[in-house]
């Protein structure tokens, strides 16, 4: 009877294949292994549809996007002859005339195939201003009356400018580090080293720093607001705690867009926040809170507050009040008891809440787009802008790459140190 019970079968000694006393060593353990194998296979098959769907709708899209950051065959595809002609070039000065002739032939062909605009755009992404020069040269090559392609190329100063040929030579390698370096305001210099781009071209480092600054400010603000409230909710009687927790959950359950919309109403020049500031005497005139950094931080703090508070609260409510009583009875002052007994235990919850809020803030898009001004746009807004306005997928991909590395690194720390179960809210 007992031999039939599953718990007996699940015994690790059997699972490892060690035969039980008296059993036929071959058949029993083999049958068990087969059964376990089938069990595993079945559970894998149950999970397979969702895993496949996620690979299709989430995994492949992201890998494809990231690959655009390092793989850009547009220039290499459009300039096959030039690639060959540049193979032996040392990168110094101008290449031999053969390279000019090859480029002219490639340009004419790309015009004939209708890919000239793509090429012009790809070169322009690496060398601002290249687009118009490429298109101009292509037109001249097309209507060349008696002039040789080489003469036309030499007549356009752009093709003899110092930066042009190194850029073309770089572009003929389909695998490129150009965009990833650009996303960090870096570039290759003529000596093959990496250097900072000139200050007037630097954009992204500042945007990353801004994103980190806003994320840190919001994290600190949510902790200052959330920790005391979590402590209060964990300390009051159950009924009152339930009412207070609803006050936290109602905004939590309202979508980010709706809450952002509410803040656009509140932060108007004649909105409620300005009314309040005037009435309290904190401001002598109405402030421009919309399209400002401070307005953005206030709105993001409101949206993120429950994310910081709930993990803290879920730890606090597991701490038995008797511990603090014990500390008091042993003579600890309230502050000492709080610092030495309470705080070390809630620390993982504080870490979880703060890290979660920080991670989520790095990816904010909606709120900066609607409440931030031009100088408050975060890295996600730049990614969207490169896709929607500039049509520069490579740059969008490179910025995504770096943002994702930061996000996943922090998520990895979270999962490693704090455990995924801390992601659970309430």
């Amino acid at each position, binding site marked *: 009877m007992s031999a039939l019970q599953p718990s007996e079968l699940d015994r690790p000694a059997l699972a490892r294949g060690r035969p039980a006393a008296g059993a036929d060593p071959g058949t029993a353990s083999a049958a068990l292994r087969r059964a376990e194998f089938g069990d595993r296979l079945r559970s894998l098959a149950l999970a397979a549809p969702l895993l496949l769907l996620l690979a299709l709708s989430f995994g492949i899209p992201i890998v494809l996007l990231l690959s655009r950051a390092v793989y850009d065959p547009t220039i290499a595809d459009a300039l096959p002859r030039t690639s060959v002609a540049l193979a032996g070039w040392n990168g110094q000065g101008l290449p031999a005339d053969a390279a000019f002739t090859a480029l002219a032939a490639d340009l004419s062909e790309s015009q004939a195939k209708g890919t000239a605009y793509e090429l012009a755009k790809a070169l322009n992404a690496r060398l601002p201003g290249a687009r118009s020069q490429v298109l101009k040269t292509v037109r001249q090559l097309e209507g060349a009356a008696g002039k040789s392609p080489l003469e036309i190329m030499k007549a356009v100063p752009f093709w003899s400018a110092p930066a042009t040929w190194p850029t073309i030579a770089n572009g003929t390698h389909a695998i490129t580090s150009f965009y990833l370096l650009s996303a960090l305001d870096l570039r290759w210099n003529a000596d093959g080293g990496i250097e900072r781009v000139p200050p007037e071209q630097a954009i992204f480092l500042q945007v990353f720093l801004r994103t980190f600054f806003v994320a840190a400010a919001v994290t600190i603000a949510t902790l200052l607001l959330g920790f005391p*409230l979590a402590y209060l909710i964990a300390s009051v009687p159950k009924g009152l705690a339930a009412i207070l927790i609803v006050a936290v959950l109602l905004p939590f359950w309202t*979508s980010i867009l709706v809450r952002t919309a509410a803040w656009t109403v509140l932060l108007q020049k004649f909105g409620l926040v300005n009314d309040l500031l005037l009435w309290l005497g904190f401001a002598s005139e109405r402030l421009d809170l919309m399209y400002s950094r401070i307005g953005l931080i206030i709105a993001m703090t409101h949206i993120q507050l429950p994310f910081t508070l709930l993990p803290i609260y879920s730890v606090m409510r597991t701490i038995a009040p008797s511990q603090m009583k014990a500390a008091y009875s042993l003579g600890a002052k309230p502050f000492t008891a709080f610092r030495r007994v309470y705080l070390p235990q809630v620390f993982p919850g504080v870490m979880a809440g703060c890290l979660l809020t920080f991670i989520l803030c790095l990816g904010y898009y909606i709120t900066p787009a609607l409440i931030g001004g031009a100088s408050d746009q975060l890295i996600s807004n730049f990614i969207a802008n490169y896709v929607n306005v500039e049509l520069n997928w490579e740059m969008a991909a490179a910025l995504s790459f770096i943002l994702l590395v930061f996000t996943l690194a922090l998520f990895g720390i979270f999962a490693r140190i704090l455990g995924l179960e801390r992601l659970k809210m309430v």
Partner: protein
Amino acid sequence: MLLSPYPTPGERIRVALLWLWCGLVILFLLVPILIPVPLSFNSGAFFVFPLEGLSTRWYEVVLGTQRWQSAIGNSLIVAFGTTLIATTLGTLTAIALSNEKFPGRRIVMPLLLSPLIVPVVITAVGSYLFYARIGLASTYTGIILAHTALASPFVVVTVGASLTGFDRNLMRAAAISGAKPLAAFFRVMLPLILPGVLSGAAFAFVTSFDEVVVVQFLASAGQRTMPLEMFIGLREKLSPAITAAATLMMALSIVLLVVANLLARRGQGRRAASG
């Protein structure tokens, strides 16, 4: 436990300050989400208190004009599609993961949760890039697939929680009694974990219904959803119709999520009762 047994006056002051601070924090939490509600019933076209008068004219705009009606219709199509797929596949996956012998459980779980962590713009831009190649851009299918990735983690987690209280011996008993696996699932397991499944479904619905970034990249002009219509409206010109739409959306998410949480709690209550 706010006060020690023999509180000093200083301690009383500290506790009073704690209450005061928390009162302000609660105002900060609640006032912003409640503000659009009275404004949506304002008869005037401005966002200033006191209200000019009560009217439902902005709700008539949202529920009566073709632009908003089509947006609400699109939102419902996408949200129902997402809920159906995410709940079905998420439940199956949660069942698979509840088996300790599931290979690579420690790797699969972070992967399943990663759509919640990856910045949504990256998901949206990636889907836009990939779906354009395979002909899924500007289709409901494409939007629903992308939303399923965002919504399914909630289903896996909620159903997973209700499964921790499920006694697997019941399935063995059903098998011994002659039930085929499918029959055992529908007649034994599903009724017991149903609160968790429905709660996961409600989370999935709200996730999809509220989502705006993926839709912004994937939807054609005719597929604008309610949040996208709101987003566009907020960028162009602030109209009180937006406060009406916001109030409707807020009401829907809050009602659904209250139900979801009551169901989840009921599932856990059952677990406490059975365990």
